[in-house]
């Protein structure tokens, strides 16, 4: 399946891109992370500590155990700092 992957804030800076499209069979966000880590040194740096990351699946906040079946977009970013 094709998944749009999006990156924000320092995750975007470490990966070196704000979005990419990946072809994956990952069943969960965590499985997708395991695949993405191997893509580049930047990806490895971005995903070094997943406890420091938050994730949204199809623009709704989700956990790393969230299933990807039917998902079109996964976004990774640090804890939000709005307001």
């Amino acid at each position: 399946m094709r998944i749009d992957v999006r990156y924000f804030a320092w995750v975007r800076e470490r990966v070196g891109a704000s979005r990419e499209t990946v072809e994956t069979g990952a069943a969960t966000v965590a499985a997708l992370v395991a695949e993405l880590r191997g893509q580049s040194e930047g990806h490895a740096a971005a995903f070094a500590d997943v406890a420091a990351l938050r994730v949204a699946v199809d623009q709704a906040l989700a956990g790393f155990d969230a299933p990807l079946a039917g998902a079109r977009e996964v976004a990774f970013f640090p804890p939000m700092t709005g307001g």
Partner: protein
Amino acid sequence: MADDGGRGGGAARVRVGDGAFDLGAETADFAAAQPGAGAVVAFAGLVRDEEGDLHALEIEHFPEMTGKAIAAIAGEAGARWGLTGCLVIHRVGRLAPGEAIMMVATAARHRAAAFAAAEFLMDYLKSRAPFWKKELRRSGPVWVAARAEDEAALARW
């Protein structure tokens, strides 16, 4: 700024954009549009420059998600506290020290509801709306870290 167009009395209005907003005019216009309200609370967040070396604050967001995340939070506040209306404005892009980053306004019959709803909105906007702040300092750029007390504040709701 983009606007949801408003949905009349009781509705939440949400605007996210890169232009400055007029805190005074927004507060006055909001208060004037709340028939039945006895209490109006407005909150504004300003760019602080504690170390005196801040050139600018840059705010990034997740455009496709921001509006609906805020609308969901505002809708919940409106229902939970019986608000006559609420308003959320949040800037993105580059801001100078002292500028207003964002504001919320809430109105209700009594003050306890208006205060609680405004604090609830702020707690959720801080930690659950997809904004990220980067400080451009003389010593270099720094992503603002989330504060543990901001995450903890959510537990009271």
